[in-house]
């Protein structure tokens, strides 16, 4: 390998000339440094590309196929049934309940995470003593494995021995166990939906805050100083300088978080398993129950693919922002 290949210019001149020279040149095109570098590069890339193609790309296409078939765990030979699975799903009321809950859950939790995350990011971006410790403690919800923390919440939401209820009743805000004003967090439809949303927010707000903080430190202080010199008040600086500069970051952070929220089943599965009576059913839990627990692969695949229209715009937005990242 010559020094030429180590140069930074994408089109290395001499090898091209040799290639054009063809028969006259002693070096064939496939032996030029550029060609060898390409071969080396694509060889290095091949395992990763193959892996994700075979285990993400192919399964994705396979799920389209499953959704159009009556495949189930029991019967290996599937018949093509067209859009029957989608039609059948659309005709059940539980599907629409799941869609409604998915939207409420995702939007409601998303807005709350944005608000709490922004507040927290502003507090944490101030210089104060013990900042690192506070930050380390506040990100705990995001760093604990999700199944682990949800089990903790399940215990805290216990119908009889909930520590939350203990605190509320000792503050006099609710009555004793068994009275009407004793909340059964996971047992009452509205409360159950609020509870699963709350746990999602609890897990996600540190992520929003951290993403925002990373963004805020990238707002050059000179710009803010310039604003001050020009006589802009705090509110003006906030509205005209800081908000426009951090809004894109908040947006990207929320988009990432929404992709994860839309596709997360563990909070609902472990806390309520969709109950009581479908009050917390979301598309992921419905897809799991239909496709895996009941073994109706085709129906399950159709339901989980219904998430795709919700995910696609987010994915496009995220990919665009990534394209801007390095090039």
């Amino acid at each position, binding site marked *: 390998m010559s*020094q030429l290949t*180590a140069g930074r210019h994408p089109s290395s001149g001499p090898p091209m000339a040799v290639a054009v020279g063809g028969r006259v040149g002693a070096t064939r095109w496939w032996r030029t440094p550029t060609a060898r570098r390409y071969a080396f590069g694509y060889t290095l890339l091949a395992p*990763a590309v193959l892996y994700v193609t075979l285990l993400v790309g192919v399964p994705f296409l396979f799920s389209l196929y499953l959704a159009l078939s009556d495949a189930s765990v029991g019967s290996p030979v599937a018949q093509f049934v067209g859009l029957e699975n989608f039609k059948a799903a659309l005709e059940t009321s539980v599907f629409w309940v799941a869609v409604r809950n998915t939207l409420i859950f995702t939007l409601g939790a998303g807005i709350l995470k944005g608000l709490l995350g922004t507040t927290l990011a502003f507090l944490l971006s101030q210089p104060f003593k013990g900042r690192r410790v506070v930050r380390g403690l506040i990100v705990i919800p995001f760093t604990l494995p999700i199944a682990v923390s949800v089990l903790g919440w399940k215990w805290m939401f216990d119908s009889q*021995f909930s520590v939350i209820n203990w605190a509320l009743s000792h503050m006099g805000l609710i009555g004793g166990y068994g009275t009407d004003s004793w909340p059964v967090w996971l047992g009452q439809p509205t409360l159950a939906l609020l509870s699963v949303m709350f746990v999602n927010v609890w897990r996600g707000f540190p992520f929003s805050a951290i993403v925002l903080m990373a963004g805020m430190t990238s707002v050059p202080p000179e710009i803010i100083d310039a604003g001050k010199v020009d006589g802009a008040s705090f509110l003006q600086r906030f509205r005209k300088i800081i908000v426009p500069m951090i809004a894109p970051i908040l947006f990207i952070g929320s988009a990432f978080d929404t992709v994860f929220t839309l596709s997360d089943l563990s909070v609902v599965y472990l806390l309520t398993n969709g109950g009581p009576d479908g009050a917390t059913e979301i598309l992921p839990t419905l897809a799991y129950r239909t496709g895996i627990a009941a073994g109706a692969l085709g129906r399950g695949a159709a339901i989980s693919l219904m998430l795709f229209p919700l995910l696609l715009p987010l994915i496009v937005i995220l990919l665009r922002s990534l394209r801007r990242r390095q090039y």
Partner: protein
Amino acid sequence: MATVAAAAPARLPRTERQRSVRRHLLIYLGLTPFLVIAVFPLFWMAITAIKQEPDLYRMDIVPFWFHLPPTWKNFDFLFHRTSYGDWIINTMSIAFWVSAITLVTAVPAGYALARLRLPAAENLGIGIFMTYLVPGIILFIPLSRVVAILGFQDSWWSLVVVYPTITIPFCTWLLSGFFKTVPFEIEEAAMVDGCGQLGALLRVVLPVSWPGVITAMIFSFTLSMQDFLYALAFISVSDQKPVPLGVATELIRGDVYFWGSLMAGALLVGVPVAIVYNLFLDRFISGITGAAIK
């Protein structure tokens, strides 16, 4: 701060100090609710894990401390009456294999994308990262078939096969960012000294990029403790489960919850993961959001 105070007139330091104290109080006041909400569940899980059973079910006394002496019984129960030992071994084995597969594929891929000026490198990189954004909830049903065809159903090997679909895209992206920061000159010098391109990668670029490689390794290693969906979908045999799934499914018998052991089992894996994750959090975050920030 100190130099400013020293340079200012003698009267100023005190008022500045007062202002600083007031500012700190306000900030702490604002942070307190966040801190309580973030940390309390962990405290509650920890105290539950070492309380005696009767102490858990008393609503007439303050529940935030012990009324009977703390106990290790719940941990004992885990290791002697459940397959917890197996779950830990499974989790560690999955973590090991997933990190190995990820490093072997993502390090070369990240290097090729960052360094070799391949045509279409940008689009390939984005294509690989895109697969990170296709969530498990779309893939878990077809992958359950793939796993069955490979003969890995109800075996922890199914997760070894599937988790790299998450870790390879993420780590390739993360590592290519790291490799871009290594100066070209180092590599050139190595090649002048007679290293081939591969030699330069192994002997020069990798050693200076070890923070990135470690970050990728940690991400892959902890993933098998973070995931729940794939484990739930693929494995229903007790002794093949990883810890989060085992704890969440095997310590509940009908309506009976073994809360003490549940919390003990969850924390035994959760706390180490949380600590490690905490240390690497900024690197993970910059991996996915470098986007809008740069």
